[in-house]
């Protein structure tokens, strides 16, 4: 188990809490300054997930909800990459959970109101744990864009939601992956909560023809970076990272 202070979060690259063009944030954003604290064991430790929690089809959204012999409808894709820390090291045993709309842009959720139909063979959730190099992959269909009640004509670009655990509770992160070339990306009020263009680009996955499976599924490459850990020898706790 590795302890040591986490790198301070660079909040300039994250969205601010109050982003009025994303209207729901107005009454859900803390108004007082966050209190800055040093990380303690409470933030540096974190839950441990074993590979044994992952079922055989958990990382295959094309079949993990489908009836026997059926598959979800849509453009077949593989999403793969690595979970890294800010030191550039792969993060092994990182739990990744994903959720997304179906090919028509419809979520399987009680509060979903879009007229696009459900796909009876698509649930919309998947999960995987990174290998010893931090690598991961899953198979799914490309989600559709969808409209949402914010402005009168706001559409979310196609995206996959990612929830990621590193080794520390303080590394906990939820984000979204977008697809290269989507013209809705720069129009989206949620994307635009991030004001640093380079930071936005970190969430846009490029098409990866090298890992595309001919006659089967295209590939998109998406690396995820979690907070790093100080690695100098002059801490009061000397331990490997």
């Amino acid at each position, binding site marked *: 188990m590795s302890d040591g202070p986490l790198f301070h979060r660079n909040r300039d690259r994250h969205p601010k809490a109050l982003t009025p063009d994303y209207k729901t944030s107005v009454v859900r*954003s803390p108004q007082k300054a966050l209190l800055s604290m040093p990380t303690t064991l409470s933030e540096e430790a974190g839950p441990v997930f074993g590979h044994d929690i992952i079922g055989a089809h958990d990382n295959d959204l094309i079949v993990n909800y489908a009836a026997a012999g059926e598959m979800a409808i849509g453009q077949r894709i593989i999403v793969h990459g690595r979970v890294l820390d800010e030191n550039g090291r792969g993060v092994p045993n990182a739990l990744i959970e994903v*959720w997304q709309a179906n090919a028509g842009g419809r979520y399987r959720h009680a509060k979903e109101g879009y007229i696009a139909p459900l796909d009876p063979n698509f649930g919309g959730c998947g999960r995987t744990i990174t290998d010893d190099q931090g690598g991961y992959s899953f198979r799914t269909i490309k989600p559709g864009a969808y409209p949402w009640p914010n402005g009168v004509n706001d559409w979310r670009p196609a995206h996959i939601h990612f929830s990621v655990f590193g080794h520390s509770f303080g590394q906990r992160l939820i984000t979204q992956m977008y697809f290269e070339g989507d013209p809705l990306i720069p129009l989206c009020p949620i994307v635009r909560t991030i004001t640093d263009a380079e930071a936005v680009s970190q969430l846009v996955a490029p098409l990866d023809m090298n890992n595309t499976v001919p006659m089967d599924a295209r590939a998109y490459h998406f690396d995820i970076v979690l907070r790093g850990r100080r690695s100098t020898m002059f801490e009061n706790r000397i331990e490997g990272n």
Partner: protein
Amino acid sequence: MQRLTHLHESPSQTAGPYVHIGCVPNFAGITDVYEADLGAAMVTDNTKGERITVTGTVFDGTGTPLRDAMMELWQADAQGLYPGRDGADPTFTGWGRTAGDAETGQWSMETVRPGPVPFTDGRMMAPHISIWLVARGINIGLQTRMYFPGDPMLGDDPWLTRIEHQNRVPTLIAQETTPGTFKFDIHLQGPDETIFFDV
């Protein structure tokens, strides 16, 4: 000059209204994919320590409960050891995940009262549960801590005593509504705004 080669943390995006599909699918009615939702149970019958229930509601700036929030709880075991560490109670996960009730927004979790854990300088911190909160309209997960009312360690706690506005510290202390049940409401805004940490 040489360049630093650090990468940058991926920027956060809101968990959105459908976080349940990915994180607690059984709760969301998608019951055929995973056997159980991760984090639904923190304890087993064999877990050592004082059994408690932690519950609460998250309120927005208008006083309306959030009915689409998801919380994660992280704490040490009854001895003050985080799961995975040498000697920690192997029957205790330390980590729980709960969504607010779709009607009332209230969440709850069965756990044990944690033991104290050390601050950076080795002084002990009062027992606490770390909480991470996400929801639609929250752009980056909010981090706070729940402490226990009447705990004799509260007064010297090295984390709490760093807080400038001591009149806000009560926002971090739960209420014991019935013996063993601790209510910890979170207010995102307003005069009772909960303290959130950049940590």
